[in-house]
């Protein structure tokens, strides 16, 4: 794993057609930080993650490092709903995609990569699942495979979009433990979440979005007054009167 870079957003605005989904977002994700991105539905959480992942281009502002550099250090785990779960692909083939940077479009899967696949599957509790078709897996098992794929990427910045959505308590606990491990290894983790209790318990930093940055800082500060004020306005208030932008000291 290469050292995690600082991911910096400078006045980033993103639009879908004429509708602005994110406005003037500025701030930094420090190397090794663990940040929850929270906000109501439509607040721009997924849009922010997709922009950092390079899937969306800002209509204004910049993300640093530039996309070409960023994609070499970054792993993106999309919402499970964005993936075709009926696709006839095996667990092993899914994991192979995680080794894209080593093997590209044409390279063969080496013994070393195969070994890493076995280890990754074992780490997420799916040892021996390599030959199983993805469409035969439960939602929790499917998500575990995607986590294993992220492990294969050996990325220093990991973006996860609602990774615990519709997961049972056991799966959530296991995958949370994996996040903690990645955090301890010095990776930068940016995770879009809805579960505020989980955010308070496990995420030291929080970014509160309402199509723009409402607050960004230590979790206990962000989820106090700014959160209550924003949610009181959501969702109708956003269109006419965007909430105040708070800078919170660490």
């Amino acid at each position, binding site marked *: 794993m290469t050292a995690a870079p600082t991911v910096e957003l400078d006045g980033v605005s993103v639009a879908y057609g004429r509708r602005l989904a994110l406005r003037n977002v500025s701030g930094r994700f420090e190397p090794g930080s663990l940040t929850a991105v929270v906000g109501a539905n439509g607040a721009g959480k997924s849009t922010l993650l*997709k922009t950092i992942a*390079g899937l969306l281009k800002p209509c204004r502002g910049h993300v640093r490092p530039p996309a070409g550099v960023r994609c*070499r250090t970054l792993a993106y785990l999309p919402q499970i709903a964005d*993936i*075709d779960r009926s696709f*006839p692909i095996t667990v092993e083939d899914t994991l192979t995609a995680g080794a894209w940077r080593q093997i590209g*479009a*044409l390279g063969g899967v080496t013994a070393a990569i195969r070994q890493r696949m076995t280890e990754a599957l074992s780490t997420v509790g799916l040892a021996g699942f390599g030959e199983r078709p993805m469409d*035969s897996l439960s939602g929790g098992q499917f998500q575990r495979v995607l986590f294993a794929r992220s492990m294969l990427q050996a990325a220093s910045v990991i973006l996860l979009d609602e990774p615990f959505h519709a997961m049972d308590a056991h799966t959530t606990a296991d995958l949370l433990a994996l996040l903690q491990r990645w955090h301890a290894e010095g990776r930068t983790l940016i995770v879009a979440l809805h579960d505020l209790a989980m955010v308070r318990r496990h995420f030291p930093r929080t970014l509160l979005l309402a199509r723009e940055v409402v607050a960004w800082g230590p979790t206990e500060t962000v989820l106090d007054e700014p959160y209550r004020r924003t949610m009181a306005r959501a969702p109708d208030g956003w269109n006419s009167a965007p909430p105040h932008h708070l800078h919170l000291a660490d």
Partner: protein
Amino acid sequence: MDTLYRVLAAPFVDYGFMRRALAACVALAIGSGPIGVLLLLRRMSLAGDALSHAVLPGAAAGFLFAGLSLWGMTAGGFVAGLLVSVLAGLVSRNTVLREDASFAGFYLTSLAVGVLLVSMRGSNIDLLHILFGTILAVDGQALYLVGGIASLSTLVLLAIYRPLVLECFDPGFLRSLGVRGSVYHLLFLVLVVLNLVAGFQALGTLMAVGLMMLPAAASRFWSQRIAGMTVASILIALLSGYAGLLLSYRYSLPSGPSIVLTASLCYVVSILAGKRGGLLYRLRTAPTFDT
């Protein structure tokens, strides 16, 4: 034994046109089988149908300029098919229209232009030749073309297989790797058009897609893996080509529809008896609740 030989092998041993037709079917099966599976998995089955219609005006333009020339009609068909696929892609990416709707818009226009062009200069027989093909009249030159396209298609598909599958399964992940899925999508569309052009020499523009999509759709009932589906699709296309030609020879039926109808029969059998979600299999394995 002698009867079996006379029914199953003699027509191909005795007649050169039957051997060439069978060789064309083998090449088409190997080229179109995997393409059909990927079209199916990309939920683009009807886009294949639309593209097969879109080939018509190009083939007709080639016919107008060069008569019933293999190369003229092939080049025209390829350009027209490619133009429609690129235009449909551009419209769906830059407007509110989805890809299937933009394909429908362009192929209908294309089909009308094609029929108009042939009607202006040719006879009904020419139109029938372009629409329904003449596999029993496939000559050496056409065979080289179909074989060349099948070989090229297989090689290119092998080279772009991994990103193509990944773009279909999890497009967001592929883009996060900095890989432009649209490039592979475009290359894939080129392969679809090439295979349709190869098919229309033998089966006609309207039937070409039959040997591409019917075996692919049937293969879904026999395997849960892409590799397995691809093999099943090729085998079903091979069987359809062989059995269709035999039926055509034995009962003096038009060869194109005979081949496609044989593929249809395989499709229906697969729906009923396929071991991966076929109707009979589902009935047999339905859960029972003991009281």
